[in-house]
């Protein structure tokens, strides 16, 4: 099979890349560590105006009705600039899930809201105990036992939790059972929940690629510029081989992520296995790149004032979210080899 993105998909990526490069600068990401939001509202509304947030919302609800394959490159770009806002949760996970299972009386309002940027959605599935940006969410989708339901943001009781990445505002959420709006109950419709989880893992893998790519770029720039013993440190084998290994890890992860997007888009039987391979490789690649970047930067990499810090901690957080590498490797093993004896 020959797989390549279409000219349109690449053009949309370039458009988003240009927008984010101008509007989502490192100092803004840094600001979300301390500001009372963990969110960049102007960037969010800019992404809505462009059509990014509504990309997966059906056209009938003001979206573009596009799919995982169209979204994967754009999420990679949100990773490249370390966008802290919950775009994976809202656009990759919630929009397609709500389009499939939302009760008719809420569907229009929720989906239109996602496309216009007015409805931010938090997601708390089993295995992700804390909800990202729940304090901003108009809606939180939760999974408990054998049911998935939505709760309006203003009906939640929130308790902020510490995150390794200060720009990710995580919350423990509580609610009254009376405020639950059922989405899926029991085995029927659970297929949609599994797809939603896979979309979350895939979207996060795409963001990890972008984060890793940017960290590698910072490191190469630094290694060319920083001199020791009269020459740039990048000319030393001990430095350049490490950077090459990091690039290798990233280059192996990227096709796996695109392949998973293809499998999701075309509903291949192997889609869950493919997503797991993607998330596993992307998580490991981002951690490898982060560690290499830190080492090649020397002491400056440890300072919170240096941008690398923001990117690396995001990579740590995302590598552990939506299933870490070990969890996904187990799922690949189960799919390929069957249950362990």
């Amino acid at each position: 099979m020959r797989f390549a993105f279409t000219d349109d998909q690449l053009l949309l990526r370039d458009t988003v890349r240009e927008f984010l490069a101008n509007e989502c600068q490192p100092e803004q990401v840094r600001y979300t560590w301390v500001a009372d939001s963990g969110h960049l509202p102007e960037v969010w509304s800019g992404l809505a105006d462009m059509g990014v947030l509504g990309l997966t919302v059906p056209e009938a609800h003001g979206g573009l009705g596009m799919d995982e394959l169209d979204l994967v490159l754009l999420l990679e770009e949100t990773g490249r600039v370390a966008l802290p806002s919950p775009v994976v949760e809202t656009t990759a996970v919630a929009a397609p899930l709500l389009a499939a299972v939302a009760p008719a009386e809420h569907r229009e309002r929720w989906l239109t809201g996602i496309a216009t940027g007015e409805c931010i959605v938090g997601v708390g599935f089993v295995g992700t105990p804390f909800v990202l940006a729940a304090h901003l969410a108009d809606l939180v989708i939760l999974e408990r036992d054998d049911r998935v339901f939505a709760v309006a943001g203003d009906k939640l009781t929130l308790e902020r939790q510490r995150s390794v990445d200060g720009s990710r505002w995580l919350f423990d959420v509580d609610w009254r059972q009376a405020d639950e709006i059922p989405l899926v109950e029991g085995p029927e419709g659970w297929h949609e929940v599994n797809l939603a989880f896979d979309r979350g893992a895939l979207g996060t893998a795409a963001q990890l690629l972008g984060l890793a790519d940017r960290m590698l770029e910072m490191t190469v720039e630094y290694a060319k510029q920083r001199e020791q013993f009269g020459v740039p440190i990048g000319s030393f084998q001990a430095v350049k081989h490490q950077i090459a290994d990091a690039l290798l890890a990233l280059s192996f992860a990227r096709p796996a992520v695109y392949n998973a997007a293809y499998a999701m888009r075309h509903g291949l039987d192997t889609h869950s296995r493919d997503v797991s391979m993607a998330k596993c490789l992307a998580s490991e690649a981002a951690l490898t790149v982060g560690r290499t970047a830190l080492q090649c930067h020397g002491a400056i990499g440890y300072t919170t004032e240096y941008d690398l810090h923001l990117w690396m901690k995001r990579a740590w957080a995302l590598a552990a979210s939506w299933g870490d590498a070990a969890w996904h490797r187990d799922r690949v093993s189960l799919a390929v080899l069957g249950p362990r004896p």
Partner: protein
Amino acid sequence: MREVDSETMKIVVCVKQVPDSWAEKTLGADNTLDRGSVDAVMNELDEYAVEEALRLQEAHGGEVIVLSMGPSQTTDTIRKALSMGADSGVHVIDDGLHGSDAVATSLALAKAIEGRGADLVIFGSESTDARMSVVPAMVAERLGLPQLTFSSSVSVEGSTVRTNRVTEYGYDVVEASLPALVSVVEKINEPRYPSFKGIMAAKKKKVETVDLAGLGVSADQVGLAGSWSAVEEAAARPPKAKGTIVTDDGAGGTAIADFLSAQKFI
């Protein structure tokens, strides 16, 4: 004087494709810019011109035509303006235009605008590669239009266009009857990013190509040969000289004062 009917107000925006501002630029063998060696983008100030045209269209209705002159890759810049929302494009393209100076360029542009029934022609106030700021004035002169240059705001009312013209001390409020030509500065607005819907729609919009014969311009009026000015030679900017380092042995303050006084700062 022409009463502008909002249904038919026609705005022509002129845009130029330039090398990316931050890129290292080189000259070719004929001392013209080597456009192949660098990324090409829409001249930044022209984005403000397109944005202003679209805002006027949103307020008054009518049509926005984007006009650009340049080699084949210029279509990317025209497409960008179309994806921002302009209705159609005109691409002036001819090998004979290569090396045209400002005077020759203004002739080709004026000929391309002439006969389109434009009520308003909008330019960015300069291009980031040539930085002459003269083409808008030259085109206005050739078309016999009033020119309202360096505008930091533009409004149209009836058959009158009013702008704030930026000056050294602030701005002048100037007005003219339509049709007229306006050039804008970057203070005027915040250009929009193309939306995905705009990008998709732009593919279906019409871009007309016009060559020299179509413009009714003869080859000896434009291009390197037809230009009034020519670049004879060019030299790379000399590298920055090293500054003077004064090690403070107690007289550092005096050294600084001497330096400042030699430069007539104190």
